[in-house]
């Protein structure tokens, strides 16, 4: 999918009468942050419970896992691919880490090394979906769906009927101990956003992922072999999911096969709300981080103002659609292609 349709090109040529080459962030990126501020303001006005400091901490803590998952998925979306493998990879890494650190199932006590292995397991599974994409030429929608099932299977195998409970102080501490009022996990999420942003801005991998979403064929014509970068992006996404699985295990104190349930679509929704569109070549980590906050604030706020839990999903769905509509309507053109 090429982003700039010929009609686009024409449009730009027209604007070029007043040449205004753009360097950085454009105005259209301002929507999601503004929406975040507005939504936050509305909830703060409506609910006294919402505007407490402890609730803000709670929101940030609650956003931690989704943030890490979204960091991974953002790179995949930037390439114009899609990734549904988060539930499987998170499940596998959650069980793996629970079995590798001090636990009630075996005598392992690898501590941090266990965490690293679990993240590597995630990266390995992500790598598999990337490889299937570039070697078998199967769309990422299916390879990642398949890998998700494989991950769940691997997780169930390791689970073997007995829940592994974590007794590792370090891992448990991540969710419990706080620094500046926020759980360590939340700081890990911050670190992931920072790392993600650095990768996106300063690494060849990140820039190429962005370029692949923009015009994949051009990279090939410029002598760049695209396939390794695609595999690398899926691998990196897998590593992020692996880390997210570890974080869930830390929060729950136990390895659960279902650790990643539902994170695939919530992460995509968060990224899209933040402005990382599915066509690729747009958005980025910071956009997605804003999207995650927006979604989390919504979830929390709706509970705080007492919206029935049944309606919460629906309200979120509406807001996702509305957010995207608000973003695209100003740029609407006739004869525009919307997939």
């Amino acid at each position: 999918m090429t982003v700039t349709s010929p009609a686009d090109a024409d449009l730009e040529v027209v604007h070029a009468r007043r040449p205004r080459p753009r360097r950085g962030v454009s105005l259209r990126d301002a929507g999601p942050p503004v929406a975040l501020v507005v939504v936050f303001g509305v909830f703060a006005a409506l609910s006294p419970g919402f505007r407490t400091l402890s609730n803000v901490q709670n929101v940030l803590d609650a956003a931690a896992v989704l943030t890490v998952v979204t960091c991974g998925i953002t790179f995949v979306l930037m390439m114009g691919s899609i990734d549904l493998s988060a539930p499987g990879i998170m499940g596998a890494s959650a069980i793996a880490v629970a079995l590798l650190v001090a636990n009630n199932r075996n005598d392992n006590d690898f501590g941090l090394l266990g965490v690293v292995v679990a993240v590597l397991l995630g990266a390995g599974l992500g790598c598999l979906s990337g490889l299937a994409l570039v070697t078998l030429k199967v769309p990422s929608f299916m390879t990642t769906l398949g890998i998700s099932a494989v991950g769940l299977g691997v997780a169930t195998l390791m689970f073997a009927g007995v829940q592994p409970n974590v007794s590792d102080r370090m891992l448990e501490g991540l969710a419990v101990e706080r620094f500046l009022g926020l759980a360590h996990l939340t700081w890990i999420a911050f670190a992931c956003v920072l790392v993600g942003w650095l990768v996106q801005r300063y690494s060849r991998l990140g820039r190429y992922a962005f370029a692949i979403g923009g015009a994949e064929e051009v990279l090939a014509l410029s002598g760049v072999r695209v396939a390794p970068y695609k595999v690398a992006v899926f691998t990196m996404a897998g590593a992020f999911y692996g880390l997210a699985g570890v974080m869930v295990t830390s929060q729950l104190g136990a390895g659960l096969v279902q650790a990643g349930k539902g994170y695939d679509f919530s992460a995509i929704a968060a990224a899209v709300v933040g402005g990382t569109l599915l066509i690729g070549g747009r958005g980025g980590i910071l956009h997605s981080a804003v999207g995650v906050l927006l979604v989390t604030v919504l979830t929390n706020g709706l509970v705080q103002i007492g919206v029935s839990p049944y309606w919460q999903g629906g309200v979120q769905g509406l807001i996702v659609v509305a957010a995207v509509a608000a973003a695209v309507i100003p740029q609407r053109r006739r004869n525009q292609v919307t997939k």
Partner: protein
Amino acid sequence: MTTNLSRRPEPRVPASAPALEVRGLVKHYPGVKALDGVDLVVRRNEVLGLAGENGAGKSTLLKALVGLVRPDAGEIWVRGEKVRLGSITDAANHGIGMVFQEQSLVPNLTAAENIVLGSEGPGVRHGIYRWNTLRRLAQEQLDKIGSHIDPLARTDSLTFADRQMVEIAKVLRIEERTSHPPVIILDEPTSVLESKEIETLFTQVRRLREFASVVFVSHRLDEVLDVCDRVAVLRGGRSVGEVPAAEAAPAELHRMMIGSTGSDDHYHGAAAERRDEPRRPRLVVRGLSGRSFRDVDLDVHAGEIVGIVGVHGSGREDVCRALFGAEPTTAGDVVLDGEKLDLSGTRAACAAGVGYVPAERKTEGMVGPMSVADNMTLTKQKSRCTGPVVRPGKQAKLVDGWIERLSIRTPDRGTAIQRLSGGNQQKVVLARWLVAGDVRLLLLDHPTRGLDVGARSEVYRLLRELANQGVAMVLLADSLEEAIGMSDRIVVMSDGRATTEVAAPTGDKPTPLDLVKEMV
């Protein structure tokens, strides 16, 4: 063979060896021999023109030169050294680079990144971008061609001409890979540029000659002769000769390309036949305004071809699209044959007998993977249906009829249109509006873009015939010459307004210079 190209230089003297030499290059595709023993020499510090019709093997040859196509037989020598070019990177390492016909820039990266893409060198260390170095590298490239583009601007925010400059700056990066002067291939660099931009480009090409060899490919023979030192001609996958540009005339080149004498002035041939009687106005546009144009007035009579000329940004493309309902309007009245034309969408326009041939044939004009028959009957369902039901027999008869009438060369009507050559594709697109026999107004946005001389002639002839049958046409021509040759009247647009109207009856045509004066 009219040349001595097949002479093998022996012994090899690297110092005087040509920059690039091709010997007996052969490439088969299933069912067709794209290259049938091509020989070519590119000397140092020269601009070599490459001419040939579509299907003559130009693009295959160019692809072979940059490693995108692996030839079945033949040799490629670079500066006296036989090479194997397995990939575009190989070619770049040997100092051969190409500016592709369709711009090959990543729209969402900065100009600097595009310039160094794939050969970042010191701009990227261990996979980490060093933006300052990167910008400096890009700046160096831009300085070479004297461009003042901000290297850190996003590419999609640049003008088309600027992007072409970025493209050239990018190709010049191959200098960094080799100590020798590079060979730069420009494939149809002018096909979407306006005349002023073309001038800038030519200046750059002449400048390139100072330190590089250039292979210049264009369908516009006058351009080729203008900028090149020498022109080599391909026909049917073979080299059929070469001429020094200074001595050659377009007619001679054309003859070599098609193998027989063709008319240099293919615009007028058919025009002479047309009945030149006054007709009633068919399209009346008053005060049409939209995003990029204001207060446009336009009259087109039945059987008349009105050309609109203007530089990029004049808004002429948008006027054209607006008349087809594909671009929103804010004000204005459009009347077609006395009835108000509904501009709300393309469906309404089609129903009213308006047809549109988009400039971007591949993405907007046709549905590539679908068959010739389906592409031809996509618009006018009545032509193939009884009630809501498609009658395959009826469709087949209709489509076969038009394939024959327009001499569309296709294995059969079920062939995917993307497998046809450009000219035949365009004929199918035109036929789409003709099958129902109810077209009253045709809007032609660069109908001959990317077509070779022969195909162009056929399209011109077809348009003339349609005009004689009373179809009104608005033409956005590929070149001023085309506009002058084809049009009965020419409207000049500038900055979104229709500024002047110039009559261009047969026998009293304005010159390009007259128009350029009005355009600026």
